[in-house]
């Protein structure tokens, strides 16, 4: 005989596509890390700006605002695709996942293309002056994450399309969505800082 | 020529060792707990109050910790197994109230310390409101100090190096700047340190309340020769200071003896002039210390060595052995030129 209590967990699900899964927590940590980094970078931008008499530094054109503003549209819309895919992942709907991910990637690619076009109109680079260094740090870090997540989403789409999509991959689709929401959400303050920042905090001699 | 260098090196080394031994007594004045001014005096008082108060706390904590060792096995052995891991409710409650009490006491003590430290800091910053301050700009450079006396009258401004003379009892404003990396100006007998940061001007106020020579040293790591970047602050009575100031405002003394005249020519014909300035001569280099009154200074190479002719010979012939990595060029000076050069430089009182 035993006097030890038993908790039988055999009836529990082996996967749970929700925020209860450790993997979701792992991605959530990633969001915290990146978020903290961008927050410090934004703080550093304004710290630096407060030390300068003239802003933007002489010679720098104001960045164009039309294209970056338009870029927000596909970017924000792409979240709908992400949402669609992550809901479909919970319901194990392959079509939904494929559709959602495709929409996500397509819109994200459009936004990326607009961003790269916009780069060519900047008349400064990271070596030009301090504003250039910061703007390119924002662009570089965010675009790096953006492309990395886009590539990861593309791999997920590929897995969905070729049918190698078990619960683990569906969980992947679900947790990938938080990263995407984060990348879109963090872009908005960055957008304000790099495209409107020079105007909001402008000082000319 | 090679032999000359070697002989000079050896003689320089011997001289150095001997003079260092002789002058070792003057090196004692670089201490944070030997105040020579009101600023460092207040810090010293604050230090000792912290020391006694926190020292007492340390002793109490240590005694209590030691007592936990002697309290072992007092009647607990008889208690049943379950009770071993847990004290009675009464003991538990008593311990908790002791911890709470200790915490409250430490908060109170720390509050007192914060107040004491803020009051000291405020009192020390009062000096800037005192009348008739003297402004001295200290510019840190790898690895020496440029000193500029900023007088109201620009023709009476004075540039020297590695040695500051101040009048006793007069507030001194130190304006800190840097030409390259971050340095830190620190004369512990007079006040705490202040970083010298490129692109910024930092300020510090100090005052000496009795005459003396106080040594200071760079306190922020600044590269290879961070260890050899010292300066002297010499506090003198007002009249003596004024005499010094008047002397320093003069252009360099003209060479008198034939040796000195030759020495001046040697100086002018070598790379010396690209870095060093001697007021009243064509030498106007800006990258090295001003040598106009070099002979009157206590040390050479940012007080790495006492200012003697032997040390100077060693320094000119082989600066990279005495202070490896410093920016003084190793130049060729022939044996016939060396002695006149030394005599000339030492004549620049």
């Amino acid at each position, binding site marked *: 005989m035993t006097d030890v209590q038993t908790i039988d967990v055999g009836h529990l699900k082996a996967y749970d596509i929700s925020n209860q899964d450790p993997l979701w927590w792992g991605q959530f940590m990633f969001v915290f890390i990146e978020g903290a980094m961008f927050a410090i970078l934004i703080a550093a931008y304004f710290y630096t700006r407060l030390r300068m008499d003239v802003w933007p530094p002489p010679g720098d054109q104001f960045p164009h605002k039309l294209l970056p503003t338009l870029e927000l549209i596909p970017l924000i819309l792409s979240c709908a695709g992400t949402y669609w895919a992550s809901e479909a992942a919970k319901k194990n709907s392959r079509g939904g996942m494929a559709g959602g991910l495709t929409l996500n990637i397509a819109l994200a690619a459009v936004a990326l293309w607009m961003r790269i076009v916009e780069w060519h109109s900047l008349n400064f680079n990271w070596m*030009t002056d301090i504003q250039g260094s910061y703007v390119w740090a924002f662009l570089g870090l965010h675009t790096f994450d953006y492309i990395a997540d886009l590539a990861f989403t593309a791999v997920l789409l590929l897995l969905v399309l070729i049918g190698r999509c078990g619960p683990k991959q569906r969980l992947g689709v679900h947790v990938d969505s938080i990263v995407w929401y984060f990348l879109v959400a963090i872009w908005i303050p960055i957008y304000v800082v790099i495209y409107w920042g020079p105007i909001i905090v402008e000082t000319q001699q | 020529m090679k032999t000359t260098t070697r002989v000079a090196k050896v003689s320089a080394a011997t001289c150095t060792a001997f003079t260092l031994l002789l002058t070792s007594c003057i090196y004692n004045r670089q201490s944070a707990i030997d105040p020579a001014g009101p600023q460092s005096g207040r810090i010293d008082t604050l230090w000792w109050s912290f020391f006694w108060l926190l020292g007492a706390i340390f002793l109490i904590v240590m005694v209590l910790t030691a007592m936990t060792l002697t309290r072992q096995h007092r009647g607990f052995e008889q208690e049943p197994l379950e009770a071993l891991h847990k004290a009675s409710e009464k003991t538990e409650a008593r311990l908790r109230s002791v911890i709470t009490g200790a915490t409250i006491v430490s908060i109170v003590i720390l509050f007192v310390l914060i107040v004491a430290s803020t009051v000291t800091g405020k009192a020390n910053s009062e000096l800037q409101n005192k009348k008739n301050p003297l402004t001295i700009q200290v510019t840190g450079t790898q690895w020496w100090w440029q000193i500029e006396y900023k007088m109201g009258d620009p023709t009476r401004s004075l540039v020297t190096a590695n040695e500051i003379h101040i009048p006793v009892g007069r507030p001194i404003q130190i304006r800190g700047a840097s030409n390259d990396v971050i340095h830190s100006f620190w004369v512990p007998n007079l006040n705490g340190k202040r970083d010298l940061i490129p692109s910024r001007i930092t300020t510090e106020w100090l005052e000496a309340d009795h005459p003396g020579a106080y040594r200071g040293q760079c306190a922020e790591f600044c590269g290879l020769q961070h260890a050899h970047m010292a300066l002297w602050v010499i506090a003198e009575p007002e009249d003596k200071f004024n005499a010094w100031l008047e002397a320093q405002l003069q252009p360099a003394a003209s060479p008198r003896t034939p040796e000195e005249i030759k020495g001046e020519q040697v100086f002018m014909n070598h790379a010396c002039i*690209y870095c060093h300035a001697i007021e009243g001569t064509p030498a106007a280099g800006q990258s090295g210390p001003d040598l106009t009154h070099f002979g009157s200074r206590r040390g050479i190479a940012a007080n790495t060595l006492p200012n003697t002719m032997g040390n100077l010979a060693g320094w000119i012939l082989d600066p990279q052995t005495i202070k490896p990595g410093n920016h003084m060029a190793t*130049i060729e000076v022939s044996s016939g030129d060396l002695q006149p050069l030394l005599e000339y430089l030492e004549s620049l009182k």
Partner: protein
Amino acid sequence: MKLTTVRNASGLAICFVVIACQRQHQDIRPSPTQLAIYGDAAKEDALRPGGPVSPQPTVNNPYNASAYDISEGQRLYNWYNCSGCHANGGGGIGPPLIKQHWIYGGEPANIFDTIVKGRPNGMPAWGGRIPEYQVWEIVAYIRSMNGEQPRSATASRADMIQPSPQTLVNRTNDQTK
């Protein structure tokens, strides 16, 4: 297969080791007469402004590709006021130093010779005034302005109050665009 991997890896490692050593070497105690070659560094080089430069006997700069010495050269370039005439390489009173075509030759030995002996129309002769090792350091720095030094040994930018030559070049390009 394993052996190849090991061989490749060790080859790569040695390669890195060599690179690292060379870039980092600091010779902070140069002897003033370390290089007894000046005077005949470019003996055959007649003063022929604009004329074709005959091939030189190769005189290697001892400080080539040494990060420490290039940065020393940069410091001396300013200390000895080369920048007074040549600015940060862009030229002013004196000719620019960032360029394709050199009046008196762009090889290390030529530049060394130019500095030591001076040239007509204002370039003073520095020979005998500044030690040779410093001339070579300045040569190394001038070469680095033209991208003739490994990137890994060259500072990306200066910490000077004046903007670095690279910055200037970028700014000009951007504005013309």
